[in-house]
Structure formats: structure tokens, C-alpha cells
């Protein structure tokens, strides 16, 4: 049965080449757009470099104070993290890092912009940066406030050129010289929780971190549970702590912060009333629907035209015992074959598109790639597309009266 449908589908495709081109163009183009979009989202939210232990981690990166008249949203302060989050019992590791700051340095009359980030010792144990040279910062180095740094491969290239090893050499940032003890793979800026060019010990900051007792600051914490089973417990413990955190001033009546999974934390806006997650999902869905709408309509249009052309075939099939249901089934299968063909072309073209986007370096170090997740979503898209554009024409086709269908020729 399916073999027969396949034969018919291929024959139909070959018959009106222009319409076939039209359908395939629409499908493959839609697939390209959706695939590039999925690849991008997948890269941004699903890439587990450098946080391989994501399933055991919770991220605390937003803090919000809310009063009747005003609200203040942003990252938490070092004091808040150290004092409140630091008192948690469940986590086995507690990584703290600052957001990245920019500064300049001047090498041989060349200006280099450096984004640097302060980190504690646990940061290097929670996260698995890929070292091409050297080692992470050690607890001892950090406790002793040694002027040491881990830099990225890109920074190494920019600062030192194509020289050999740079371990033990010095890099100057903010007028201070740091000895390099490790070189890691560069991250794209979209991984903003981990991105920096130079990673420094948290103890070498020029300001006294604990002196500011406010809750708002520029720090992020990652708490790591012993195993995935402890994560809900850890979340509960944090919520328990938040319930007891004193309100910092008369102008406020609520203080919010959350221990989030990576995606929740990534999308959190720092405003309780606006769920970043909801925004992101709505925006992505709307865009996808919008992009799919016109090609679908086009396909429906072309499909109907094609069906009318095949009225004799439909009449004959009905006369010889095909029920409406069988015909709908046949047509949808045919349409799915068409969409998958378009999807296949779309995948090839998406690879080209991703290659172009990667080489254009729109976002540095963000390399879009085709993986199984993306491929899986593409197949889903193809099916949705095939069904959407096939159901209405198939229904029209099955409703066709046999006598008129046979007469039409």
C-alpha cells in the first residue's frame, strides 16, 4: 500500500515540475529558518560547555526588591551570596563569580579590551573549562590573593600573538600584572554567566566585597548538589532562606531571589511580574508560526490545485472501493513524502546557511551546528508542516463527488 502511494507521490512530483519546485522551495526555506533558529536556541541554552554538571546545579543570578512605588532588579551582591547562600547545608560546592567588567590594556601601542571576571575556588570545581594549557586557579592561590589569572585562547592570541606557551607570563589588566596559570577555550558572549576573557581570583578585587551590606550587586552563584536527587531539596532550602531574609529598607516590602535551573536562570528578567521564560516561548512560537503560515497557505493552495487535476484518479479510486478515510490517508502520506523531501533539501541548505553564519562570525565563538536535538526538531517540524498543509486539501479531496470527479476530465 505505502509503496503504491510512494510511486504515485513521485509520479505526481515529476508531472508538474513547477509546482514541485514551488512546494519544495517553500518547505525547504521554512525548514532553513526554523533550523537555524533551533540551532541557535539549542546552542545558547543546551550547550553544556563549561557547566557539564548542569543537572546537579542551581543558579542564583537575579535579585529583586519590590516596594509600592518602585522596584529594583539586578544581580545579587557578594555579601548576600556569602552570607545567606553560603549558609546552605545541601550544596557540596558553592561557586561565586562576578559579572564581567571591561577594561583596557595597551600592548605595543595597540589597545586591547579585556573583559574580566572574579571567581572563587569552587567556581573551578563546579565548572569544567577546557584547558589547552595550565591548570585552574587553586584554593591556595585564591586564599593567598595571588595575582594569577586564567585567560582564554582568544585573549592569548590577541595579547601575545601566535607564540608558544604563555604559562608564567604576565598579562596586564587595570594597571595590575597577573601571572598566567591557565588557558581555556573561549566562550561566546551568549553564555553570559561564564563568559570572560580573563578570570581572576575573587580575593584580588580592589574593593572590600563584604563592606557593602546591600543585596544588589554584580555577582552570580552556582550551588552544586551531591547528586541530582538532592536538587529539589537544595531548591527548597534556598526558598526557606529567602523567606527569612530581612527586608533591607522601608521603601521595600518584598525581596525575591531564586535558585533556578540553568534555563530558568538564563531567561529570568529580574522582574517577578515578567516571566522571561514566558516571553521567550511566546516570541519563539509566534515567530515560528508566522514563518510557517505563508508557506503553509501556499502549499495548501498548490495542493488543492493539484488535487483538482487528479479528480479522475480520485473518482476511480472511490469507485473501486477507497473510502474517504483511505483517500485522506493516502493524500496525507503523499504530502508527508513531499515535506520530507523538502526537509532533506532544507537540512542541506541549513548546513550551508550555518556555515555562512559561522564564518561571518556574527557572534564570536558561537558555532551553530547540526546535532540530534536540532535534527529531531526538524523532523517534528516536517511532520507538523506536512499535516498542516495536507489536511485541508485532503478533506476537500475526499468530499469530492465521484460522479463529478469522473466527469471532470
Amino acid at each position: 500500500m505505502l509503496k503504491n502511494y510512494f510511486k504515485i507521490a513521485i509520479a505526481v512530483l515529476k508531472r508538474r515540475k513547477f509546482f514541485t519546485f514551488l512546494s519544495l522551495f517553500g518547505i525547504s526555506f521554512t525548514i532553513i529558518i526554523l533550523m537555524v533558529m533551533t540551532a541557535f536556541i539549542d546552542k545558547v541554552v543546551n550547550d553544556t560547555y563549561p557547566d557539564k554538571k548542569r543537572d546537579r546545579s542551581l543558579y542564583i543570578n537575579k535579585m529583586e526588591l519590590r516596594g509600592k512605588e518602585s522596584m529594583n532588579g539586578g544581580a545579587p551582591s557578594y555579601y548576600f551570596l556569602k552570607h545567606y547562600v553560603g549558609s546552605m547545608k545541601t550544596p557540596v560546592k558553592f561557586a561565586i563569580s562576578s559579572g564581567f567588567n571591561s577594561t583596557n590594556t595597551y600592548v605595543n601601542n595597540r589597545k586591547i579590551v579585556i573583559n574580566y571576571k572574579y571567581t572563587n575556588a569552587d567556581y573551578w570545581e563546579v565548572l569544567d573549562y577546557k584547558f589547552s594549557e595550565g591548570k585552574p586557579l587553586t584554593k591556595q592561590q585564591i586564599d593567598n590573593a595571588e595575582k594569577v589569572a586564567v585567560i582564554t585562547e582568544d585573549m592569548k592570541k590577541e595579547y601575545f600573538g601566535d607564540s608558544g606557551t604563555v604559562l608564567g607570563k604576565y598579562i596586564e589588566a587595570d594597571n595590575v600584572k597577573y601571572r598566567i596559570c591557565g588557558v581555556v577555550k573561549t566562550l561566546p558572549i551568549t553564555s553570559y554567566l561564564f563568559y570572560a576573557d580573563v578570570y581572576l581570583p575573587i580575593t584580588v578585587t580592589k574593593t572590600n566585597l563584604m563592606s557593602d551590606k546591600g543585596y544588589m550587586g554584580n555577582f552570580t552563584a552556582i550551588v552544586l548538589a551531591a547528586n541530582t536527587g538532592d536538587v529539589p531539596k537544595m531548591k527548597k532550602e534556598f526558598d526557606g532562606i529567602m523567606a527569612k531574609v530581612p527586608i533591607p529598607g522601608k521603601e521595600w516590602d518584598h525581596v525575591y531571589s531564586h535558585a533556578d535551573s540553568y534555563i530558568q536562570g538564563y531567561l529570568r528578567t529580574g522582574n517577578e511580574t515578567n516571566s522571561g521564560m514566558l516571553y521567550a516561548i511566546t516570541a519563539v512560537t509566534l515567530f515560528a508560526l508566522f514563518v510557517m503560515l505563508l508557506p503553509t497557505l501556499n502549499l495548501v493552495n498548490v495542493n488543492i490545485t493539484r488535487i483538482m487535476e487528479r479528480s479522475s484518479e480520485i473518482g476511480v479510486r472511490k469507485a473501486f472501493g477507497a473510502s474517504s478515510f483511505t483517500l485522506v490517508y493516502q493524500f496525507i502520506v503523499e504530502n508527508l513524502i513531499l515535506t520530507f523531501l523538502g526537509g532533506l533539501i532544507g537540512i542541506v541548505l541549513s548546513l550551508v546557511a550555518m556555515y555562512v553564519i559561522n564564518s561571518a562570525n556574527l557572534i564570536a565563538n558561537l558555532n551553530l551546528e547540526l546535532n540530534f536535538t536540532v535534527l529531531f526538531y526538524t523532523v517534528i517540524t516536517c511532520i507538523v508542516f506536512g499535516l498542516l498543509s495536507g489536511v485541508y486539501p485532503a478533506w476537500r479531496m475526499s468530499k469530492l463527488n465521484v460522479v463529478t470527479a469522473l466527469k471532470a476530465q
Partner: protein
Amino acid sequence: MIKLQNIQKVYRTDTIETLALNGINLDVAKGEFLSIMGPSGCGKSTLLNIMGLLDEPSKGNISIAEQPTGKFNDKQLAKFRNQKLGFIFQSYHLIGDLQVIDNVELPLLYRDTTAKERRRLATEALEKVGLSNRIKHFPKQLSGGQRQRVAIARAIVGNPEIILADEPTGNLDSAMGNEIMEILLQLNRVDGTTIVMVTHDENMAQKTHRLVRLFDGSQVQ
């Protein structure tokens, strides 16, 4: 075999009602070869479509092979047509995108038949109409007479009890027409298939067991 009782068919548009069939009563016996004649627009094709359950009468009862068909739903109708009826049309209605053999296999697709069995039955049917050497051709590579023979093979492949033919020789010259007629007569004689044929051609009609004439939707003979 086929029993029509007081069949009436009215076509309605916004403004006009046309009476296509008016009180037709007809009995076709098992193994009979019946032909229907009449001028253009007298309702003979409509009558044939109603017998073939492709069209519904506005009034009246049909029973085929002792079964009343009035209450069948879409699925039951499809199944019934598939098993009891075979159709032959004036303009052949072969599917251009399929090879001869696939065209013939078509009715079997809607039954539980294995691919091997389908192939065997279709080859057999094509042998009967003398086209076993054209299995892999496409319809457009065949002459009109050959096409109609493929259509006959398709009609008989499912071994139906009744074949309904709507002017099967209408598009053919007389030599080819006679050839087709011979095949139909043989089917009737040898296999005992009941055949109802609509025709324009008095000569063809004379070769059948019984002739019914229609005029303006009514039976005149």
C-alpha cells in the same frame, strides 16, 4: 441480482429542478447481460451511477445481491463497491502516473491482499484481456482499445459479481469496439458475471440478453 424500485432522481439548482429519473423499476437477474439505450441526457448514465452506488437516488430503493444498500455509510459503501462491483468507463479513467499492472491492482489495494497475491491476480486479469505483454507500459503508451482492455482487467481483477460499463466502446472505432464487446460477452458467458452496459450503439446492444430503453428519465421498453 440488482433490484431497483421506483427510483427517482432530481437535480436541484437554485432556480430549476430537473427530473433525471422518474420511477424506474428494474430487475437484473444473476448472469444477465443487460444493455441500456436512449438519447443523450435521458438519464442512462445517472441510472448506471445509481446502480453502482456512486450516486444516491432522491427516492426509491436499491438492493444488490439481496442486500438493501440505502443505509450504508461511506465506509460500508466503499467496501461493498470494492467487493461486488466493477466499473468500466467511456474515457477509461486510467491513472496516468501508474503503470498498467499498478492500475489493474488498484481495487485490490483496498482489500487485505498481499503484494504477491495482488501481482498474481492482476497478471491473470491482464492475461484474460490479452495484454500480458504490456504490464510495464504507462497508459499513454497504449492505443484506445488497449486502454479499455486495461480498464476491463481492472474491473474484473477483484472478481466482482457485477460489472457496470458506461459506453465502453464509445471512444473506439468499430473494430476495436467489437474486440471489447467480445471480451465482455466472454466474461458473461464463461465466468457468469452479471453485466449492465450503457451504450449508444444499436449493434452492440443487440448482442446482449436484454435491452432497456430510456426516454426523458422514464423506461419505455
